[in-house]
């Protein structure tokens, strides 16, 4: 199978390049800097050919090479104990990390960004974000089982927000629903800092048996290299280098052609086809084609293997026969995979392709030369050491420094500020404040989004939005399953990046523990502005330092992730937004704890203590204030709280658990009541007395390491004893009231659940229809 039309180009061969050292090359247009181009010339000992230049430019882009963050990211690999490594089957560096679940099961998960494409073309950008992360999961040998999508948009009432929101949500749904992957959670934040640079992150999780783990390497001389799936087209050319590694401004033409176009049906077929290949052990190595397309797949496979690779580029099946060699190498057309197959397995491989009607073409073979050689009708157009393309790209020690403005921002506390004037205290004011909070853009119901996603497909979804974590069953016999949560708070991180990143981890950890799962591993998507701005670089460095320190303290390793830089409009960066995903394990998903109470008369306990921490809070956000210091991080307390929640779930001591985070106790009480439409009677006098805070603070402070739980009467003594034995603050603050249809809080006017629900659910439909 070869392309019908092989167009004769004026091919820039290696031989020609050697003879014409002075030819001008468009390296700047491809996003390379002068020093980087000089380095390529040095590595090759001559000028690169057009095709080589295309490869280096995408593979040395920020998006693919992590050149600005690499020096800092090392900490994730260094701050790891033996204990943390014990369940890590595959660590950072592969397509996705793999964690041991026991019973022969393994789980792989990863979170990635697709921010810039989702601004330029929201539907396709978001759709292919899902597609790309799912292919990373398949590449590990796993069956993908669920997706999640943390989203951050501009101001809810800005005219452009609806464009991005509608497109991104429809794209995630349109692609994910068609793949048959339940969408089990995510985030939704509106903030004008994301107006020109929304964040569309996507997480996928997959499961496999230990023996099915596959890695991306090309080994064994004479093994064949095959490209299969969709044909290669002209979409997404330069996506990684041009889009993901630059900031937007209004002066340049639209970058729409650099966004890939997704075909979810092709991806679904590709998933089933790959799983059948794995089942028959028909591939030696496999790599998905994402950013940088064939450039990335060939150089990474060859570089991770033990030899070299030779590939004939005219064998690539094309959608558009006019594509040049450079374009073919850079194209980011979706739904493609590259694999290495032994000669004995060729027939069986082709049978699987034919069964699923997937197109494929044999491109070449693995060699022992240590070189990646790409030919065009037999003429050599690429002859490189694959390591120099895939792994030995430039690494920058970007200058960074604590911004001059950081002190003044931190000195500007909400308490006592102009925006804090008229703080609610009377019962009517507090009731209005609670209602305003739960109807606010960031705290309102996300149902408008989540009802556009299939959460049922697969039949293994034990919990999904709006519960704290998504829970998916892995083993139908034993009930073994995983829980996942993603969190980030750009406002906290802006106020104090080291702490902000730790707070993101703490919240995701808490959410997983709240579901009853034992946290095991972390994946992170670090969304920041331009690394060339020392202020931003400092935010990034601090966030990585904070996150890696916190992972060490909580004892859970980072197994993979992604860095997304240049998220800014002109010179204004987004809030630093490290999105942290935590994966946990449940021995039996039957024991998972939902976030709402149901049984009349159960006791409601608040775990943890409350301090006056309103800086960076949702309440201060509603009043238009951002300053001061974020809530304190106490990882020892988070760990202790986690252990209590996990034990309580395992031993049936709690029926509901909800973590306290954005919006504090007020948001948690409303959400736990609305979850099943069952109210509660709450009295906070004892808490106010014990912690020395007023009612407003008790309700709206965002102090960390807290959760509310509902405890069956028969379990109350045992539960209290457990908390006491562990020395963890616990206080009975109320009881579940099934009959009343309302949330009663002493000192706050009565809140009917109907009115709360209406306020909570009306916001997104109001803005988005």
């Amino acid at each position, binding site marked *: 199978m070869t392309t019908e039309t092989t167009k004769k180009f004026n091919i820039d061969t290696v031989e020609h390049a050697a003879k014409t050292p002075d030819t001008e090359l468009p390296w700047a247009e491809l996003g390379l800097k002068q020093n980087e181009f000089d380095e390529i010339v040095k590595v090759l000992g001559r000028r690169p050919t057009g095709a080589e230049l295309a490869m280096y430019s995408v593979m040395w882009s920020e998006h693919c090479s992590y050149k600005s963050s690499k020096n800092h990211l090392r900490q994730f690999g260094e701050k790891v104990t033996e204990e943390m490594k014990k369940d890590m089957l595959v660590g950072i560096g592969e397509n996705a990390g793999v964690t041991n679940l026991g019973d022969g099961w393994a789980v792989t998960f990863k979170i990635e960004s697709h921010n810039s494409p989702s601004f330029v073309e929201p539907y396709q950008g978001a759709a292919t974000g899902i597609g790309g992360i799912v292919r990373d999961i398949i590449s590990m040998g796993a069956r993908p089982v669920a997706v999640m999508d943390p989203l951050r948009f501009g101001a809810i009432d800005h005219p452009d927000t609806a464009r991005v929101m509608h497109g991104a949500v*429809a794209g995630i749904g349109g692609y994910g629903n*068609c793949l048959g992957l339940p969408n089990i959670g995510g985030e939704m934040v509106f903030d004008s800092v994301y107006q020109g640079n929304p964040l569309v992150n996507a997480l996928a999780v997959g499961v496999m048996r230990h023996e099915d783990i596959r890695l991306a390497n090309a080994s064994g001389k004479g093994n064949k290299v095959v490209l299969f799936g969709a044909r290669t087209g002209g979409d997404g050319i330069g996506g990684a280098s041009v889009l993901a590694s630059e900031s937007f401004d209004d002066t340049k033409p639209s970058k729409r052609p650099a966004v890939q176009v997704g075909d979810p049906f092709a991806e*679904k077929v590709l998933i089933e086809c790959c799983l059948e290949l794995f089942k028959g052990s028909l591939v030696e190595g496999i790599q998905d084609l994402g950013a940088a397309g064939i450039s990335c797949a060939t150089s990474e496979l060859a570089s991770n293997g033990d030899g070299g690779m030779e590939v004939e580029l005219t064998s690539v099946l094309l959608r558009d026969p006019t594509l040049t060699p450079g374009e073919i190498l850079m194209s980011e057309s979706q739904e493609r995979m590259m694999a290495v197959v032994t000669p004995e397995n060729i027939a069986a491989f082709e049978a699987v392709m034919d069964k699923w009607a997937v197109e494929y073409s044999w491109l070449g073979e693995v060699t022992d030369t240590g070189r990646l050689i790409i030919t065009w009708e037999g003429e050599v157009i690429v002859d490189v050491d694959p390591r120099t393309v895939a792994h030995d790209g430039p690494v920058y020690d970007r200058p960074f420094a604590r911004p001059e403005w950081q002190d003044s921002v931190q000195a500007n506390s909400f308490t006592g500020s102009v925006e804090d004037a008229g703080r609610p205290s009377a019962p009517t004011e507090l009731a209005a404040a609670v209602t305003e909070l739960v109807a606010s853009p960031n705290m309102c119901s996300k149902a408008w989004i989540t009802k556009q996603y299939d959460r*049922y*497909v697969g*039949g293994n979804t*034990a919990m999904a939005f709006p519960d704290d974590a998504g829970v998916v069953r892995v083993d139908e016999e034993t009930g073994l399953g995983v829980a996942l949560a993603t969190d980030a708070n750009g406002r906290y991180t802006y106020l104090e990046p080291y702490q902000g990143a730790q707070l993101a981890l703490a919240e995701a950890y808490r959410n997983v523990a709240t579901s009853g799962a034992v946290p095991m591993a972390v994946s992170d998507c670090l969304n920041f502005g331009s690394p060339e701005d020392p202020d931003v670089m400092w935010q990034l460095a601090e966030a990585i330092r904070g996150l890696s320190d916190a992972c060490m303290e909580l004892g859970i390793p980072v197994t993979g992730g992604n860095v997304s830089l240049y998220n800014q409009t002109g010179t204004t960066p987004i809030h630093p937004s490290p999105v942290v995903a935590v994966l946990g394990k449940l021995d039996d998903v039957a024991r998972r704890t939902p976030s709402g109470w149901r049984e009349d008369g159960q006791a409601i306990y608040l775990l943890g203590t409350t301090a006056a921490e309103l800086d960076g809070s949702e309440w201060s956000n509603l009043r238009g204030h951002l300053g001061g210091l974020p809530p304190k991080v106490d990882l020892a307390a988070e760990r202790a709280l986690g252990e209590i929640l996990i034990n309580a779930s395992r031993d049936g001591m709690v029926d509901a658990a909800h973590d306290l985070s954005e919006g504090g106790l007020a948001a948690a009480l409303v959400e736990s009541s609305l979850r099943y439409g069952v109210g509660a009677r709450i009295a906070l006098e004892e808490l106010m007395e014990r912690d020395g805070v007023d009612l407003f603070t008790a309700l709206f402070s965002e102090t960390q390491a807290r959760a509310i739980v509902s405890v069956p009467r028969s379990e109350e003594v045992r539960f209290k004893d457990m908390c006491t034995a562990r020395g963890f603050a616990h206080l009975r603050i109320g009881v579940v009231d099934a009959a009343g249809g309302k949330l009663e809080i002493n000192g706050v006017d009565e809140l009917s659940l109907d009115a709360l629900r209406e306020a909570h659910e009306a916001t997104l439909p109001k803005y988005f229809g």
Partner: protein
Amino acid sequence: MTSIPLIGEAVAVAAEPRLAGAKIGVVTFPGTLDDRDAARAVRLAGGTAVSLWHADSELGDVDAVIIPGGFSYGDYLRAGAISRFAPLMSKIIDAANSEAKLPVLGICNGFQILTESHLLPGSMIKNDHLKFICRDQTLRVENANTAWTVDYTDGQEIIVPLKNQDGQYIADEKTLDALEAEGRVVFRYVGFNPNGSRRDIAGISNAAGNVVGLMPHPEHAVETGFGPESLNGEPRDTDGLGFFTSVLTKIVGGDK
């Protein structure tokens, strides 16, 4: 302790050897998504699920067939329009129309394939609100005499998940009148019509009652803890199991 059932507990279905002997085929097309779910539903109901591949030219010795949901061929042309031409479909059409009246259930995309195959009248177009919708949907069983509904009672309300993009059932008035008159409207949406379907129709049958198609997904409501949420404290997560026990009852000739 709590009276709320834990999820994942085995669904109580009497293990009857005669049920296990009943084979129900589950068809997979490229782009089918809910085939494993349908097979699980068959197993939980006590039967044996058999995987069928769209390109096969023989149906084998199955006693009934389920065409599950998904996006066969991506729904890029018109939902079900390409799958209808699969080699296996012509066998299914013949068997459904034969003396033996093979029971056939089409769920969501399967329903769309059945209308494209003309085993069932009418068609599905895009939801009236133009968006994908996923929700727990209340249905009223309007006819408990089909091969797939004998374990329900007429007028019974059940809750099963609904999830679709092209779920708006349409047909000309004459056809709709005929369906109503012949008792072939098998399920109707209750409380909320999620897609603008004519006369709130969620599912219909052929004249003989062996072929049933519906948009909602009973196979997602067969296992405690994995189906729709409880309503007013009543667990409703296994309301869909009746589809699968019904057909098994029918196959093994049980009295109902």
